[in-house]
């Protein structure tokens, strides 16, 4: 039975695409058959973060409009055989993305995959509501920062009212993925703590991704961060989040919290 995830946030630039790629790759590395789907028509970037930007031939809108068959548009990852990308259209008008068309594509994907991970565009317009429409699970990506938390709250409201599950009177599973977290700044009282964000948004925590150079390095190379360096802090954090999505009970840890005296001193100086 396929599970459909939407990675969403309301606010832009908090790490939706990075998280989609990292979670999708981590699930695929566990042997699950995964499709990551870019819903950001006109501003697609999942292809770039996945390192497949030069292999895009057909896209989601081509499939919705019947110009291409789904298998033609799916791009198989070169590093992992059971990971596929369905890119968004970069040039077509986003009005071509219809509710019925998306539903058809999602139904077809469900037959063939274990997981479908939808990368939502920022905002609360049609692209975002279509991306969340057919989800079983929502991963709400939030930075420990006031505007991101506010927008996440808004998105949670939409998840509870605008999704197919909500309209059928069911509850959509919602998880918080806290990204760009800096435990040192949080401990100094200069950044919202994990507990603060959890208390305000009151949805269960899926993972804490530390602010890390490794995320930028991975995207520079077009590699999902979970595929670039298995031992880096964000890679471990994303892999653990993927395990939790599969129902595994992994203890939650705040990555990178342990720091030597020198590290503390250096960090303070650098700040």
């Amino acid at each position, binding site marked *: 039975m396929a599970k459909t995830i939407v990675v969403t946030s309301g606010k832009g630039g908090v790490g939706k695409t990075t998280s989609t790629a990292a979670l999708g790759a981590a699930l695929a590395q566990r042997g699950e058959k995964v499709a990551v789907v870019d819903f950001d028509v006109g501003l697609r970037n999942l292809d770039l973060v996945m390192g497949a930007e030069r292999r895009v031939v057909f896209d989601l809108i081509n499939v919705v409009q019947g110009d291409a068959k789904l298998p033609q548009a799916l791009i198989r990852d070169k590093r992992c055989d059971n990971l596929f990308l369905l890119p968004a259209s970069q040039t077509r008008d986003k009005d071509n993305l219809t509710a019925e068309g998306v539903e058809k594509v999602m139904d077809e994907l469900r037959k063939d995959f274990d997981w479908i991970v939808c990368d939502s565009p920022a905002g609360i317009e049609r692209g975002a509501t279509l991306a969340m429409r057919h989800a079983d699970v929502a991963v709400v990506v939030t930075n420990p*920062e*006031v505007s991101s*938390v*506010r927008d996440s*709250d*808004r998105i949670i*409201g939409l998840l509870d009212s605008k999704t197919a599950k909500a309209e059928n009177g069911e509850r959509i599973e919602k998880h918080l993925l806290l990204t760009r977290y800096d435990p040192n700044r*949080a401990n*100094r*009282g*200069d*950044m*919202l*703590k994990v507990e*603060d964000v959890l208390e*305000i948004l009151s949805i269960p925590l899926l993972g804490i991704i530390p602010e890390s150079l490794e995320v930028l390095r991975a995207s520079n190379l077009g590699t999902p961060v979970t595929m670039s360096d298995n031992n880096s802090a964000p890679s471990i954090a994303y892999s653990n989040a993927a395990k939790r999505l599969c129902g595994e009970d992994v203890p939650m840890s705040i990555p990178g919290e342990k720091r030597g005296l020198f590290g503390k001193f250096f960090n*303070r*100086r650098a*700040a």
Partner: protein
Amino acid sequence: MSLFSFFQKRNTAPAARERLQILLAHERTNGEHSDLVNLLREEIIQVIARHVKVDGEKVAVKMDKGDQFSTLEVDIELPADLERKKAA
């Protein structure tokens, strides 16, 4: 600069937390009520329009949610030549 900030303790996270809690408490309840206010506005306009010609733009309905009670403020601007229109 770093030495200054070391001594000058100014934790900003508690302020962020407090501001968010107040704002979201407001936005969450307003979300529920924005529909109600719109509904009331439409129906109030309909009732008045039965008797007086009224410009929809000139009807303002505001809801203010307080701890003990909420108030509904209705501000309707009627045309100066009210009587004549009413008679017509």
